[in-house]
């Protein structure tokens, strides 16, 4: 098997360059590539376009990249938990493209699957449809949406092997599988990295073909946004 292993997050992000397009898996702070985000923060990068369902919070996740003014544009579906984000958006420092969540997921999936565009009903009749082709199929209106691809995709899985095969856990899967397919270079960080052959091929969620670099994350904080418990 081809060995995709790199030493750590620093080595994994070594060639990320300014003005590149980056994808990050995760929903809220659940399933985000924490170690790659930390390593990216130490690099002198500007002008990045970040594709991610959310934009982190002020002091964690992509929010920290915003604090360092590394991001030129965010492409997201919901960005509500971040005061610095709001400040940069209102002052015009940051460009934002808001996309319906299912459209975002499908545009990324299409990017990885070689489908340049597709029709979806989400957003018909709304400002999301402005400037887009509308077509009727079987009596219902749909709008044309294009694929999304990235220079680098950052994904986080529960377990992975040296061949790049990934298994996700719980709702930390979310956008990670599609983003793994849509990066020219896909970097996977995992909680547990094992030799090829130790994971059951029947249980693999993302086949290793999509993953170019893999490493075991040094530390996972796994911050919870809304700790809600029953008595």
């Amino acid at each position, binding site marked *: 098997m081809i060995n995709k292993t790199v030493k750590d997050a620093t080595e994994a992000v070594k060639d990320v360059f300014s003005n590149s397009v980056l994808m990050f898996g995760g*929903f*809220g*702070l*659940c*399933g985000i590539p924490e170690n790659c985000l930390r390593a990216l923060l130490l690099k002198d990068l500007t002008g990045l376009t970040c594709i991610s*369902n959310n934009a982190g919070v002020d002091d964690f996740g992509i929010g920290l990249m915003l604090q360092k003014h590394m991001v030129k544009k965010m492409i*997201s*579906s*919901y*960005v*509500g938990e971040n005061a610095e984000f*709001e400040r940069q*958006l*209102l002052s015009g420092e940051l460009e934002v493209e*808001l996309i*319906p*969540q*299912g*459209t*975002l*997921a*499908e545009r*990324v*999936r299409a990017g990885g699957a070689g489908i340049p565009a597709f029709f*979806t*009903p*989400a*957003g*018909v*009749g*709304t*400002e*999301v449809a402005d400037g887009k082709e509308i077509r009727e199929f079987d009596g219902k209106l749909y709008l044309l949406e294009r694929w999304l691809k990235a220079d680098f995709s950052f994904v986080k899985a*529960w377990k992975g092997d040296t061949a790049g095969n990934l298994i*996700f*856990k*719980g*709702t*930390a*899967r*979310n*956008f*990670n*599988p*599609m983003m793994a397919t849509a990066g020219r270079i896909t970097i996977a960080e995992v909680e547990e990295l094992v030799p090829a052959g130790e994971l059951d091929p029947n249980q693999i*969620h993302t086949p290793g073909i999509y993953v170019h670099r893999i490493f075991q994350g040094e530390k996972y904080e*796994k*911050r*919870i*946004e*809304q*700790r*809600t*418990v*029953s*008595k």
Partner: protein
Amino acid sequence: MLDKNQIAKRIAKEVKNGQFINLGIGIPTLVANYIPENLEVVLQSENGLLGIGPFPTEENVDPDLINAGKQTITMVQGSSLFSSADSFAMIRGGHIHLTILGAMEVSENGDIANWKIPGKMVKGMGGAMDLVASAENIIVAMQHCSKDGQSKLLKECSLPITGMRCVKKIVTDLAVLDVLPEGGFRLLERAPGVSVDEIKAKTEGKLVIDGEIPEMVFD
């Protein structure tokens, strides 16, 4: 007038056995507390779960298991997990029978506005546009009037819409109303102690009233 829990309790009466349901944030989330135990239904979380269970006890909190409101949750027996692409394939593909969500405005032809107030901070639509574009049945849970007393049931939405001609039923603190296919809100029930005249006065869009309007009945 109904409080938030009573609105949720009234909406729960619309739930049918065997349905797959997506609940939005706020009052819709409370509906889960009032679904009769003899009904077998499955709750979807659009971040990738079918089978939302109750909130966890402190020792069972799992940061890798959250709902779309980013709250920690549990899974019921028979749950399944999947990606966001699969989740919205389920939604767009019409496999989710019922969507319950909040709104800032609903128009008499069923348009809904619930994602953006121009001039204020825009947080994004999340999954709302995908949900309202595809669900076969959409019920809105909201207050009848805004905090400054303006009707939220309008001829036309004044805010940017989330989806067009999609809302089927509305449950407010004052009334239960259907959105008619030809346009207009048909008054079905009124909240205990609320008169038809009050509902008339607080509904800006076309209100259709046929005969006696019963008070809501709670078990």
